[in-house]
């Protein structure tokens, strides 16, 4: 029964991801929004498993979402999405535990056997956002702020910042890559 639900859920996610690869932004947003609770659960369980509290759960959730995004070319359209997502989550979780000085084998199957139950959190990364954004150039920071906080499209951000749309896209992509690198190095 549970297994059937998990399969149905994965089938929908695979469809969204395929649609996203074909250029459907709405499907991509839906997918990421659906993955966030799963990741939150996986990370929370991983932390509990290794004797950590829930202090930095949202940090790892965000790092994982960023990794899923930057590595989406490694997902094959013919494979299931859930194992791929949890493999990335596991990698990020182990990485984050290692930075905290723990070296553990995580039984990932135990972490995903139950469907995600939505647990209310503030969904806020505990990291000082300004400190994180400080690794970006001014341009990248302006672009990331306009798009993330104000929810602008690349077009709107381009108009506001008097940049070309192409330049906004490049700044955004480089900014995200820089954020992924700084997440890894910041806690060391």
């Amino acid at each position, binding site marked *: 029964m549970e297994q059937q639900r998990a399969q149905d859920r994965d089938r929908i996610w695979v469809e969204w991801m395929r649609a996203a690869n074909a250029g459907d932004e709405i499907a*991509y*947003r839906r997918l*990421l929004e659906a993955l966030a609770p799963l990741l939150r659960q996986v990370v929370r369980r991983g932390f509990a498993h290794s004797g950590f509290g829930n202090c930095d759960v949202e940090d790892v959730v965000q790092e994982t979402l960023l990794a899923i995004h930057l590595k989406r070319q490694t997902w094959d359209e013919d494979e299931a999405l859930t194992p791929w997502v949890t493999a990335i989550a596991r990698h990020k979780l182990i990485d984050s535990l290692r930075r905290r000085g723990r070296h553990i084998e995580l039984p990932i199957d135990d972490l995903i056997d139950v469907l995600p139950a939505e647990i209310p959190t503030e969904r*806020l990364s505990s990291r000082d956002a300004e400190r994180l954004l400080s690794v970006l150039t001014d341009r990248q920071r302006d672009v990331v702020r306009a*798009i993330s906080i104000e*929810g602008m499209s690349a077009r709107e951000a381009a108009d506001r910042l008097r940049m070309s749309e192409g330049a906004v896209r490049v700044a955004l*992509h480089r900014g995200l890559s820089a954020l992924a690198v700084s997440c890894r190095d910041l806690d060391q």
Partner: protein
Amino acid sequence: MRTDELINTLVADHAAQPGPKPVGHGLVMAIIGGLAISSALFSLTLGVRPDFISALGTWRYDMKLGVNLVLMIAATWVALRLSRPTATPLTAMRALMVPVLLLLAAVLYELVTVSVSAWPSRAMGVNGVMCVASILFLSLLPLTATIYALRQGAPTSPAVMGAVGGLLAGSLGATVFAMHCTNDSPLFVAIWYALAIGLMSIFGLLVGKRALRW
């Protein structure tokens, strides 16, 4: 930053480039580019051996070229599998047994057919150290291109991924060098070529450990 704000940026970035190229695309480009650079350096410095055409008719020479080519193909295949986060490294790396077994068979055949007194000279060849140095020289730029391409991947172990990238680049350099080299005995290949490719693999491991983190 809030998670929904992060998702805003990811969606906007995705809209700019919906389906990024798979890792294999970049890796093939790196191999083609690596072969081109390596061949250019090769023709400027070493050059093809004078009896290349007639050598192609001997089993030893074909085996030398073949083992290196098979390793290059196997390493490419393994690298592609390892670039996915769901890969199981040990299973994926089984393909590397193919060139190893091929070379072992050739070595055994050589040991059986050549008299014991000739083994040392076959194994040492004319200049093994020069062979190792040349392969390293022809492999370094291909390694750079390979690692760069593999940065698109999501390997569970960056170090292992780097080591396989080193095997790939090393066998590429060795394949090019084999067109110059006149030491065709499998014994020579199993010592000096393997040493050079092994060094490239260690080098790839060290580089990959940092460069392929994600």
